[in-house]
């Protein structure tokens, strides 16, 4: 079996969120919100998409295309071998329009474009069509584990030697109606901002190109007990000690209690968070990944991310632990490009 032991690098990472789009300005001067539902700040799409195309696309598709094209451009890869996308709810805007019309007005005169765009893999397909990529193409929809699942698939494809480059993203948009659903279903809880996010990252194996950091591994766990969780983290770290752990702590006590175990496993290691700046949606964990990659690229963890509010050096690695609604966990390990032991 062909398999690759070469390191997997993150060449670029781009976000559109409730912080300034396609920018890392939030690391020094983040926007702060008090509303409980905040929509993403969109960039000027004209540099990525023609006005005609943009009119036919919902917000999720425009954002997915903008972060993807921007990540590909920065990474210097025009045709990735794989396009793998996560989304928890897909194109909410079109789903709601179609559903609302069908329920309120009956089963006539429904619009095919809305149905077409309501399908979860529309983003992955659109990127494939736009970049003329005939390679591996897939889409994951597993609540807050959607990005992590897409990344896991990419990691497998690299390990099996099937691909050399992958564009991995996760995209979720919200409407006021679906933001209400997010709260009623408990996907977003007290103390959390319901938000939107679109993130694209470009990965490559064995590339000489400048990179933000390297990907050491991805694990997905379902309903692990404490022993299994501890064992999985220990296995991922393999005796190394990261600078910090990126958590999904949000300010909601029930959610944050899922991460208390980290203090026992890694005493003294700094805990980081991002949901207080970016809000909560099914693509949140992609933001955590993006933020950790930039900390490693810059060699600094900004004070705004640290739970203790202290900025610190970042030279050894960041472990990412994502606990989704108390049942799914992902464990991801990122290390700096230089300084690998």
């Amino acid at each position, binding site marked *: *079996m062909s*398999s690759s032991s070469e390191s997997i690098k993150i060449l670029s990472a781009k976000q559109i969120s409730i912080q300034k789009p396609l920018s890392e300005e939030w690391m020094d001067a983040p926007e702060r919100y008090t509303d409980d539902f905040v929509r993403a700040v969109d960039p000027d799409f004209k540099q990525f998409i023609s006005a005609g195309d943009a009119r036919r696309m919902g917000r999720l598709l425009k954002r997915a295309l903008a972060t993807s094209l921007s990540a590909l451009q920065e990474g210097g890869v025009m045709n990735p071998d794989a*396009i793998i996308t996560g989304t*928890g*709810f*897909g194109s909410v805007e079109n789903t709601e329009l*179609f*559903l*609302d019309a*069908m*329920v*309120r007005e009956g*089963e*006539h005169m*429904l*619009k*095919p474009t809305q*149905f*077409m765009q*309501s*399908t*979860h*893999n*529309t983003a*992955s*397909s*659109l990127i*494939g*069509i736009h*970049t*003329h*990529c*005939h*390679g591996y*193409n*897939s*889409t*994951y*929809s*597993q*609540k807050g*584990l*959607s990005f992590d*699942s897409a990344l*896991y*698939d990419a990691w*497998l*494809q690299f*390990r*099996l030697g099937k691909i050399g480059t992958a564009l991995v993203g996760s995209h979720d948009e919200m409407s006021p*109606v679906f933001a*209400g*659903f997010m709260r*009623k*279903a408990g*996907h977003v809880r007290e103390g959390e901002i319901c938000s939107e996010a679109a993130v694209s990252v470009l990965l490559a194996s064995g590339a000489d190109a400048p990179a933000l950091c390297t990907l050491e591994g991805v694990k*997905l766990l*379902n*309903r692990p007990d404490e022993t299994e969780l501890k064992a999985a983290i220990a296995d991922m770290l393999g005796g190394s000690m990261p600078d910090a752990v990126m958590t999904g702590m949000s300010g909601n006590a029930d959610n944050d209690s899922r991460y208390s175990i980290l203090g026992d496993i890694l005493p003294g290691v700094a805990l980081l968070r991002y949901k207080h700046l970016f809000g909560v949606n099914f693509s949140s964990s992609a933001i955590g990944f993006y933020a950790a990659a930039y900390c490693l690229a810059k060699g600094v963890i900004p004070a705004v991310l640290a739970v203790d509010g202290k900025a610190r050096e970042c030279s050894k690695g960041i472990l990412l632990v994502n606990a989704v609604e108390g049942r*799914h966990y992902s464990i991801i390990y990122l290390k700096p490009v230089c300084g690998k032991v």
Partner: protein
Amino acid sequence: MAQERSVLITGCGIISAIGLDCSQVLESLLANRTGIAPLKYLRTEHTEFPVGEVKLTDEEMERIMGIEPGTPVTRTALMGMIALKEALADAKLDKNVLRQVGFVSGTTVGGMDKSERYYLDFIENDTRNEYIGTHDCGSCSEMIADSAGRFKSVTTISTACSSAANAIELGADMIRAGEADIVVAGGSECITKFHLNGFNSLMILDHNQCRPFDAERAGLNLGEGAAFVVLESRESALRRCVAPVALLSGYGNACDAFHQTASSPDGEGAYLAMSKALADAGLQPSDIDYINAHGTGTPNNDLSESQAMKRIFGSIVPPVSSTKSLTGHTTSASGAIETVICILALKNGFVPVNYGWEHPMEDGIVPNMDLHPNGALKNVLCNSFGFGGNDSSLVLTLADSVK
């Protein structure tokens, strides 16, 4: 080489319009009996469309699974639970070992059956809030997985009509990469008003029994169902003393990169997916004894898929049939449902019939209309193509033929 890379299939389970388990589905295939009939279970204004419904109400399925009435559960989840139960029993997988087993399921509709019923309640009052959490695709997989026990990992693929095929590919990759010894993979999808109307708005539903690859084909009939296969490493199967029901000897996924809902005229994505699957299995086109086509019955798919098959197989295309004229198009579940149909064909030595076909289409393939009982099949190809040109092909091999 191919055999060393192949992943064993040690169990399968299915529920569809042509039967509620493997033995009923086999009986229907051998009798060439369609499950497509006038609408009975779905509440819709569009009663003019024939469909391939699973012949059980939600309540009947709840009783089969021992679920308390009133528990928030979706039709997609219920069908998935029934098919998963059969697959686990077939592979002799005990609840206690699921802790080491991965679970990958495909769905796109998810819990839309309940969302379209309770949408106004979700907005206007709090009487049905417990169903909001069952709307998303991931929650369906969680309900299906939890009905069997505690799996090691659970995730959901949502690539429209190729979802279940891609779930099987991911499961096999997890085994090849040494991430798991056993992965249960497949998909589930119920018919909803939402996608019946969606396909209707795209004008690709046939008002009559569908006729894949027929010159006069006029679209697809929606179907529903679920199927799962137990994928296992050779070492694990040996250790557990279970015999494979078939081998997954190769697979490929490619993107047509042409249009969100239409297939390219030359079937580039389908061609690439089949080519990748054959190369992965280390097989030549001439090694394939049967193709279970995607064959939806839409003018566009069947022409595009015919071109792709001709590009690969030249003038000697092996027997081809679409079983969607028996089951209906089971959308996200179709990759798994048709994988199980291929396994039944391999094990029992017959070629399923392309029910309803009469007129050869220009530039098209001529599908198989004879059951060929007692025909020995060794390698079969199973196609699943989705919206966005998401094309996947699996090569399944008779277990006995590998030493």
